[in-house]
């Protein structure tokens, strides 16, 4: 119980602090402790922790969505706890979790634009440096936005489609 509450509040911290600040903090910890990680690795690490904080909630909601009667029935048929998780909870929970998980993935994909602050050149940063060269901010930014949109929109559509398909009795 204590562990549960501690984990919950720790993850809550990662959800309540701006990602930009998390990048700067972990980046400075990296240089203070002389860990020698590249900024790319730091960015991946921060995004991974941040994603984990959100994903935990999704998985929890998924497991809770499985009726406890179903699980009890499985257990009383002689399944072990792990078998119950694998054969009963997983197939049911996946249908609840996957659409939201796709949404989370897209959110993280959009949040990657923040890594420009610790000096990684990604889509937005490189379009900004093109802007300083060509002095055409509207056109270049519109193209960058279009690229983001084309990456995100089809997957978002897939997510809503799966959600509609898998929501029971709707």
């Amino acid at each position, binding site marked *: 119980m204590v562990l549960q509450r501690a984990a919950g509040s720790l993850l809550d*911290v990662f959800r*309540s*602090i*701006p*990602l*930009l*600040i*998390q990048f*700067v*903090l972990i980046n*400075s*910890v990296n240089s*203070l*402790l*002389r860990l020698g990680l590249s900024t790319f690795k730091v960015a991946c690490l921060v995004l991974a922790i941040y994603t984990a904080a959100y994903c935990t909630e999704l998985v929890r909601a998924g497991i809770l969505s499985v009726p406890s009667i179903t699980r009890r029935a499985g257990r009383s048929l002689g399944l072990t706890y792990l078998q119950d998780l694998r054969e009963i909870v997983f197939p049911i929970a996946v249908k609840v979790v996957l659409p939201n998980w796709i949404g989370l993935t*897209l959110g993280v994909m*959009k*949040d*990657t*634009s*923040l890594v*420009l*602050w610790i000096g990684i050149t990604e889509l*937005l940063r490189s379009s*900004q440096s093109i*802007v300083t060269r060509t002095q*055409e*901010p*509207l056109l270049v*930014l*519109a193209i*960058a*936005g279009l690229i*983001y*949109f084309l990456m*995100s*929109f089809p997957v*978002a559509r897939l997510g809503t489609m799966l959600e509609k398909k898998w929501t029971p009795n709707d």
Partner: protein
Amino acid sequence: MNYTFHWAPALKAWPQLLWGAVVTLEIAVLSMILGVMIAIALALFSKSNSKLLRGINSVWVELARNTPALFQVYMVYFGLGSLGLRLDSYPSLVVGITFNCAGYLAEAFRGGLRAIPETQVRAARSLGMSAPKVFIFIVLPQLFRIVFYPITNQMVWAILMTSLGVVVGLTNDLMGVTQQMSVVTFRTFEYFALAAILYYALAKFVTLGAGVLARRLFQY
């Protein structure tokens, strides 16, 4: 680790950081108020018969949801600037966050509108209330109860999003103040740790306050 932490100068800067937090909250509240109003309009657009209004709604929602918030702020700051509409970093941050919040909230409001029975509207109309009156006195109060949780969530998001202001050169919000001080003193970790604590406190303040408010408002 041969690095000594210097917390004293960072703690001495506490008042400035607190003022930064106030500015951050101000930006978030301002853009949430605007965002909620626009989101209501967009949700109504999505139900209207006009193809143009429905188009505006879907373009706004899809753009807001499928591009990064940072891109949206950039677009307002640099993109609108090249159209001759030069906004300072403060208003362009507010516009950017408003755009983003309105897009996300419009979806929540659309779902909320669907949950209010059509029969209530018809009953009120047949009692002689005008359409705007029905919306304000019958639909809106129930709508706010349904979307209360999404609104609080979005409010926390808005607070976190204000940190993007530093990228377009805002210097007086919490992130901007912290950034400036850490650049001057090279004490990045200390200042940003304090800022992180303040952001966490702001977010907790909003969620706890919303919980108290919900219990007072929706007790029956």
